[in-house]
C-alpha cells in the first residue's frame, strides 16, 4: 500500500506509513470540526498581538539580518551620538536614517504634548506637558532598533542628557520665537468691567504704537520704584507688572478717595481699577509729556507713611518703562479670550 504523502510502499495491513507516519486508510475516526474562537476573546487577542508586535520592535523586525539595507544596520558609538544630535528636532535623526516609520506615532504624540504645553503655558498643566514632551523627545532620540550599545545605565544616562538638552532647546526656541513678541504676566489688579480678576495671567504684545495707548488700557511695565523700596531707602525695580492707564500726556487726573476723574468727568470704577493703597487719598495732577498716569497695585508693607508727592511719583511713569500692551486674558482657561478695546 503506497503512502500518499511520501510514496513509500508499505506492507499490507498497516494503518500508518512506516516512513512518514501518515495515515494510509481513509476510514479514520477523527473529529473534523475545528475549534472556534469565542467572540469575546477577539479584542483581548488583538491587544496581545499588538503588545507582541511592539515588543518585537514593530512588525517582526527584531531579527533583521545584517545583509539588509544600510538603514537597518548596527550603529557605532559615534553614529549614535550623531543621530542623537540630529534628534534635537524630534524624529529628524530617524528621517535621515529612513526609520521614521518606527517613531512616527511618538513624534505625533510629542506634537500633541508640545501643543498642549503651549496652550496651557504658565499653568501647572503647561509645565507638566513641557516635561512630558521633553521626556518623550529624549525617548525618541534613543529609540533605535539596533541599540545594543545603549542598554542599562548608559541608555538612562543618554536619555537624561537628551531630556536636559531638549528642555534647554525648548527654552532657547521659545525665547527666540516668542519672547521678542509677547509677554505673559499675572495681574495684581482686578477690573470687573473687563472680566479681569487679580491673579489672572494676561498676554501682552511688545510691539505697539505708543500713540495707541488710551485710558483704560492695561500695560505691562517695569516700575522704577516701589513704595516699599523707597521705605528702605533704595531703588527697587519690579519688572513685568500689569497696570492700568488712567490718563495720558496732557490729561488732568483727579483722585477722589475711591475713584478717578479724567478731565473733569468721573471714571466708572468697574472699568478703572482703584488701588487699595490710594484709598482715602485726594490729589490732582496734569500728566506731563512722555509720562502716563497709571493705576498700580503697589504692595505697601508695614506702617509706611508717604505724602501725595510720593503717591504722584508712584502713579506717574515714563512711557519708556512700558514693555507691552495687554490684548488677551490667557489664564484661567475658562475665561481665556481677547480683551475688547
Amino acid at each position, binding site marked *: 500500500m503506497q503512502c*500518499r*504523502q511520501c510514496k513509500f510502499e508499505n506492507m499490507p495491513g498497516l494503518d500508518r506509513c512506516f516512513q*512518514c*507516519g*501518515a*495515515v494510509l*486508510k*481513509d*476510514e*479514520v*475516526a*477523527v473529529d*473534523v*470540526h*475545528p*475549534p*472556534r*474562537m469565542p467572540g469575546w476573546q*477577539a479584542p483581548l*487577542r488583538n491587544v496581545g*498581538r*499588538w503588545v*507582541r*508586535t511592539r515588543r*518585537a520592535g514593530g*512588525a*517582526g*523586525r*527584531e*531579527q*533583521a*539580518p545584517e545583509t*539588509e539595507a544600510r538603514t537597518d544596520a548596527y550603529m557605532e558609538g559615534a553614529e549614535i551620538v550623531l543621530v542623537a544630535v540630529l534628534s534635537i528636532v524630534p524624529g529628524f535623526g530617524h528621517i535621515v536614517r529612513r526609520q521614521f516609520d518606527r517613531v512616527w506615532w511618538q513624534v505625533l504624540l510629542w506634537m500633541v504634548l508640545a501643543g498642549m504645553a503651549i496652550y496651557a503655558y504658565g499653568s501647572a498643566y503647561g509645565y507638566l506637558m513641557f516635561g512630558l514632551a521633553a521626556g518623550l523627545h529624549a525617548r525618541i532620540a534613543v529609540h533605535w532598533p539596533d541599540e545594543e550599545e545603549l542598554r542599562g545605565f548608559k541608555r538612562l544616562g543618554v536619555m537624561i542628557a537628551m531630556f536636559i538638552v531638549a528642555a534647554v532647546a525648548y527654552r532657547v526656541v521659545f525665547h527666540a520665537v516668542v519672547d521678542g513678541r509677547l509677554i505673559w504676566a499675572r495681574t495684581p489688579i482686578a477690573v470687573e468691567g473687563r472680566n479681569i480678576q487679580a491673579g489672572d495671567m494676561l498676554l501682552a504684545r511688545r510691539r505697539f504704537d505708543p500713540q495707541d495707548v488710551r485710558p483704560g488700557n492695561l500695560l505691562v511695565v517695569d516700575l522704577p520704584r516701589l513704595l516699599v523700596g523707597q521705605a528702605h531707602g533704595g531703588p527697587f525695580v519690579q519688572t513685568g507688572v500689569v497696570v492700568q492707564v488712567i490718563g495720558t500726556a496732557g490729561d488732568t487726573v483727579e483722585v477722589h478717595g475711591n475713584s478717578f476723574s479724567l478731565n473733569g468727568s468721573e471714571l466708572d470704577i468697574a472699568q478703572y481699577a482703584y488701588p487699595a493703597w490710594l484709598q482715602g487719598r485726594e490729589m490732582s495732577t496734569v500728566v506731563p509729556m512722555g509720562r502716563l498716569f497709571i493705576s498700580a497695585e503697589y504692595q505697601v508693607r508695614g506702617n509706611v507713611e508717604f505724602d501725595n508727592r510720593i503717591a504722584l511719583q508712584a502713579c506717574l511713569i515714563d512711557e519708556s518703562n512700558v514693555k507691552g500692551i495687554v490684548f488677551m486674558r490667557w489664564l484661567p482657561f475658562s475665561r481665556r479670550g481677547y480683551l475688547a478695546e
Partner: protein
Amino acid sequence: MSRFRQLEFDESFEEPKGKDEQRGTPVRDEKYFHDLAVQFWLGGDYELALRNYSRSLEVRATFLEGWSGQVRMLIELGEYAEARKWADKAMDLFPEHPDLLAAKAVAAARDAMWQDAMACSDAAIGKPNAGARVWMSRAEVLSLRNRAVAETCITNALSMAGALKPFIHLESGRLLMRTGNYYAAIEHLNLAVRLLPRSALAWLELGKCQMALGRDEANVTLEQCLRLRPDWDEARIMIGRPQGWLRRLRARIFGR
C-alpha cells in the same frame, strides 16, 4: 413495484440509485464539497467555506486539501490560535506535511509570533515536496522583514503554481497590499480578476488597492464586487467612503 417487494435477492444486489443521481446530479464526495468551499472562499464567505471544508472531511477524513483548507479559512477568519491548533491536529494524520506547516507559519506570523512562524516556514521549505503554497507562506513570513526576498518567494510560488496560478496571484496581491506594496499588488490583483472573473474577493481586493492608490476606477471595481455578492457589507462601506482630492493626493504621495 409493490408486488415484488417480498422477493428475496442475494447480498450482492445493490439498491437502485436515487432519482437525483440518476438525473446526473454531481456526486457529493469530498471533491464536490472542496470545490464548493473554494467557491465560497472566492466569494469572500469564509465561514461557509470552512463549513464545506469540514463537510469534505466528513466524507473522507484523510482528505489533505480539506484540512489545509480549514486551517486557511481559520486564518481568514482571524482565529490564529485555533488555526495553529488545527494545523497540529492535521499533522497527526499527515506528519510534517509542508502545506500544513506553511499554513501554521502563516497563522503564527499573523499572530505576531515571529519565531514560531520562521521555524514552521523553515521546516516547510526544507521538505522535498514543498509547493506553491509553501513559498507563499515563506513570502508572508519574510515580507515584514525583507521585501525583496519576499518578492522572490512570490516569483518562486508562481513558477511552481501550475493550476493554482490564479489563486497564487490573488494571494500575492493580498499579501503585497497588506505589507503596503500597493503598486506591486495591483499587478497581481489585475491578473487575478482576469483569471477569476467571478471571484468577489478578487474584485474587492483590487478595489481596495485602487482606492489606496487614489485611483478613480475603485468604485467601478467595488460595484463589480457587489454585483457578484450583493450582501457584502465591506464592499458597500468602501464604496460609500469619501474620495476627496486630499485623500487621493495623500494616496499618490505616500502610496497608501
